[in-house]
């Protein structure tokens, strides 16, 4: 049987190579997706290696107050506090940048005072750099393209300083764009920062961060309960306190986006694998038809059905194993670059090269199992093949074909008629081509929609991933509701401004779990992903986030109770909203006041009628002039959303672009393989036609044209399926992350692209690839 397998492999070299490549692409994607989904383990491994605490507390009080509080808690096994300074809206600038990077909130700690400095995992470090040394978290460094030795300037409304990057570290609490960003400086610089903080926040209990505390809990304690208790208890003593567990950071901040990416990659891998299996069915059936006399001969000399089927199956099993192995090896080879360039920025974690036996062997064995079943089932028709019949007559069908478009009765050009006849004649082949082109068109449409939503108009995708977003942000000095209202009135007078609003959030409790209690100045402009019901209007109404609603088992028309310490307030749910990884409730300002939450707003959001980078900059400039000292900082959020700093959108955009390229490559390979099989099957027919006087060009044109009807219908069907299914599919992928109904922009006009592109590509590839006909004489084609 081994000789049979070898003979089969020798015969089908081109098919072998193409199938190998497609299998390799599929397993490359599959394995890469699995590697990208491993970041929970990456986080945990780093946590164990660095002795990461169970949770972190940041507060406006001093270390003694926090330690005093924690010392009374039985669940605290160990804790350490260090001084910190929060600088809000800090901008980074470097000679490397063409423009300043967008502002972010940074927590500075002293290299001598920080309890965690010695435990940090440094990717790069050089303590001998000149000037003021800055040790930076890797997210900030990598998203800005910085490395050790680079000179940077940090500035905000109250602080400016130049630094030299002396180290880049991974921080598993304060090292991701979803939380504060950690930076470490030398004691002298830290002291200066502390002074700036005290000058800027003149009240000692101002809402800022002065202490960072790491807490380990005792064996058997529920970390989340401990975090809640610590936050609630400390909040009674200090103006501001926040905390998060390592588990929650891992789930929400460090792995959510990369898991979404992994899901996308995995979905594409499954589709390409499905195409591979269809190809197996197609080529095995063709091979049986082509080699029926040989199969008859083998049976005649004594080979059993099992042996012959085994040989055919073995051929694809070997190819599948080889292709999978190559794909897995390629995945290991490419992943470090992918990780370094994109994924590290998203996660804020360093993935260390290592072998992943469960993923690698799982993919290999899983693929081989699927191929084994598919290939073996495809060979079933050999069972009923009698040797004598096979040798004499080949495979016979009792139902003779209908003569479609008889030339004696159908008027038309010869080449067109023959192409259509061929298209109508080969139903089995057409079905296979239909299914494959359908899948390719669907993936193309899906990729196209994602590309449109991550590159052309990112508004809907942005809202899904990050919730409400404005075009221009104004950070205010006086955060009281009255002052903010006055400022908003002024900003509304600027030409081009369409909406001005503000929102803020505090932590509330619903059903024992923390939620973001978000209050807004005006509910109309809020674009929070409302998918059911309507926005809140009264002071007893609320819009609830989907995860909270599902957890509480409530919907529109039901009530929920929100607690703030001792006080509880009930709200009528008027609508449900969705965005990734959120536990939110939206209420009006009046509702917040009713709940006893003082209304303060740090930042005002502005939307423009027709935003672009320049018009937003103009509005920001005019806003600063109008509002004077009240405006302490501004941000062109529109520019940021459309820049390479918008990491989630950028990363998904890159993945989509990568998948589009992979899709095109797969399509070319699949079409090549289909054409090869079609050509081999019809080679004798082409030889006969050449002999009687058809030119090579005519035959190539007929062949290419014969595929067009099926390609056109299948690509249209695939594009249509993509049009209707892309949002439900996207919603399915993101359902675990709090999204029920995806509302990506799906333009009907996008359907034209896969239909035209795929049909044209099939025609062109077929015409080009059948150029072999020119090189073979008619005699040669008949003899082959």
């Amino acid at each position, binding site marked *: 049987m081994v000789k049979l397998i070898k003979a089969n492999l020798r015969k089908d070299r081109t098919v072998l190579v193409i199938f190998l490549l497609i299998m390799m692409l599929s397993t490359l994607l599959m394995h890469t997706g699995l590697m990208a989904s491993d970041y929970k383990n990456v986080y945990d491994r780093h946590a164990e290696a660095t002795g990461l605490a169970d949770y972190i507390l940041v507060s406006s009080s001093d270390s003694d107050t926090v330690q005093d509080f924690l010392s009374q808690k039985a669940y605290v096994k160990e804790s350490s506090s260090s001084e910190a300074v929060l600088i809000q809206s800090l901008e980074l600038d470097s000679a490397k940048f063409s423009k300043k990077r967008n502002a972010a909130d940074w927590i500075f700690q002293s290299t001598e005072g920080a309890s965690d400095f010695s435990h940090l995992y440094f990717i790069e470090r050089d303590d001998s750099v000149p000037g003021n040394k800055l040790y930076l978290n890797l997210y900030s460094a990598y998203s800005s393209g910085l490395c050790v030795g680079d000179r940077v300037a940090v500035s905000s409304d109250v602080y400016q300083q130049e630094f030299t990057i002396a180290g880049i570290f991974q921080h598993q609490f304060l090292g991701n764009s979803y939380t504060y960003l950690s930076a470490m400086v030398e004691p002298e610089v830290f002291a200066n920062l502390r002074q700036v903080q005290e000058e800027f926040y003149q009240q000692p209990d101002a809402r800022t961060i002065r202490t960072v505390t790491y807490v380990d809990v005792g064996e058997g304690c529920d970390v989340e309960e401990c975090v809640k208790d610590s936050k609630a208890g400390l909040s009674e003593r200090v103006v501001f306190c926040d905390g998060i567990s390592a588990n929650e950071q891992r789930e929400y901040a460090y792995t959510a986006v990369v898991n979404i990416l992994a899901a996308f990659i995995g979905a594409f891998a499954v589709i390409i694998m499905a195409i591979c299996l269809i190809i197996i069915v197609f080529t095995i059936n063709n091979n049986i038809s082509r080699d029926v006399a040989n199969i008859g001969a083998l049976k005649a000399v004594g080979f059993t059905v099992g042996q012959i089927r085994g040989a055919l199956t073995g051929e694809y099993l070997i190819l599948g194993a080889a292709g999978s192995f190559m794909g897995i090896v390629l995945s290991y080879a490419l992943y470090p670059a992918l990780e370094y360039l994109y994924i590290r920025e998203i996660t804020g974690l360093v993935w260390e090269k290592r072998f992943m036996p469960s993923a690698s062997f799982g993919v290999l064995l899983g693929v081989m199992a699927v191929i084994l079943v598919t290939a073996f089932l495809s060979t079933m028709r050999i069972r009923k093949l009698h040797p004598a019949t096979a040798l004499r007559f080949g495979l016979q069908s009792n139902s003779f074909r209908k003569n479609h478009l008889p030339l004696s009765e159908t008027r038309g050009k010869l080449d067109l008629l023959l192409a259509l006849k061929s298209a109508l004649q080969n139903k089995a082949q057409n079905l296979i081509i239909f299914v494959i082109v359908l899948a390719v068109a669907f993936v193309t449409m899906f990729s196209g929609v994602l590309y449109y939503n991550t590159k052309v108009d990112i508004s809907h995708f942005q809202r899904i991933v990050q919730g409400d977003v404005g075009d221009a942000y104004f950070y205010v000095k006086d955060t009281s509701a009255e002052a903010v209202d006055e400022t908003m009135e002024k900003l509304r007078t600027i030409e081009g401004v369409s909406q001005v609003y503000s929102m803020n959030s505090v932590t509330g409790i619903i059903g024992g779990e923390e939620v973001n209690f978000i209050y807004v100045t005006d509910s109309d402009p809020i674009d929070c992903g409302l998918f059911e019901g309507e926005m809140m209007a009264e002071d007893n109404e609320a819009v609830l986030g989907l995860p909270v609603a599902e957890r509480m088992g409530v919907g529109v028309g039901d009530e929920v109770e929100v607690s703030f310490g001792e006080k509880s307030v009930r709200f009528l749910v008027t609508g449900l909203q969705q965005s990734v990884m959120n536990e939110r409730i939206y209420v009006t300002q009046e509702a917040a006041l009713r709940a006893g939450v003082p209304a303060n707003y740090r930042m005002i959001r502005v939307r423009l009628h027709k935003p672009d980078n320049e018009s937003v900059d103009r509005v920001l400039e005019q806003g600063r002039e109008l509002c004077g000292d009240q405006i302490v900082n501004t941000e062109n959020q529109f520019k940021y959303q459309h820049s390479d700093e918008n990491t989630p959108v950028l990363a998904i955009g890159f993945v989509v672009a990568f998948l589009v390229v992979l899709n095109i490559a797969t399509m070319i390979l699949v079409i090549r393989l289909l054409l090869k099989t079609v050509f081999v099957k019809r080679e004798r027919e082409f030889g006969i036609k050449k002999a009687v*006087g058809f030119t*090579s060009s005519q035959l190539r044109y007929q062949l290419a044209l014969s595929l067009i009807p099926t390609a056109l219908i299948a690509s249209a069907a695939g594009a249509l399926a993509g049009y209707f299914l892309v949002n439900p599919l996207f919603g399915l992928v993101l359902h675990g992350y709090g999204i029920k109904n995806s509302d990506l922009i799906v333009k009907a006009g996008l359907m034209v692209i896969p239909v035209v592109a795929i049909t044209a590509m099939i025609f062109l590839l077929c015409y080009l690839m059948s150029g072999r006909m020119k090189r073979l004489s008619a005699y040669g084609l*008949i003899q082959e």
Partner: protein
Amino acid sequence: MAEKEVIIKTEKLSKSFSVGGKQQHVIKNLDLQIYKGDFTVIMGSSGAGKSTLLYTLSGMDKPSLGRITYCGQDITGMNDDKLAVFRRKHCGFVFQQIHLVDSMSIMDNVISTGMLTGQKQKDLKEKAMELFRRVGISEELTRKFPAQISGGEAQRCAVVRALINDPDVIFADEPTGALNSAGVKAVLDVLTDINNAGQSVVMVTHDIKSARRGDRMIYLQDGGVMGEFDLGKYVSGDKQRHERIRGSLEEMGW
């Protein structure tokens, strides 16, 4: 006797194939003439180069060396497409394996060939039916696919396909090789009939019964012409013709 018109002429025709890295010379320096109206039979032992010569003469394959002229036109340097155009206008083929396109009906096999030379479909149908009647194929049979008819019937349909464009020459490569005796007689009768009507035929065969139908024989051996002789016109019932031909062949070592 009036001099016959030469339709095909070869000058130092050679054809080689590369087999396992070695050159195999199948036809060597062959000078040959085919005359209009002749039923030329090419015979020889197995491996003599008969089929190779046939396909090279007809432009189905290109010679390695030498020249082929066709009614004075040199076809040696023609490219693939030009040869295809040449074949559709001047040549008709009848193959041993018949080689009708399986996926087309008998009628479509013929009409598609006829449409290549620009003939109108309506005229083609009438012409094809006339040819089918001539070779004894019913209209009902023309609607069937090649796999649904007997070998002899299929080969006669192949002759119709070969005739549809009024070729100068019909090339037949062992046309009776895959047929039973009834089919052999039927096909040979058709070829004889069309030759009697003025059609030039060049037929390769290894069978004396088939060779008897020819009026000129070329005997090949080791890629070269061993001998040529005039057989005279075929007359049905000439019992001594077979023996005369056998005698001539045995003289040449057949």
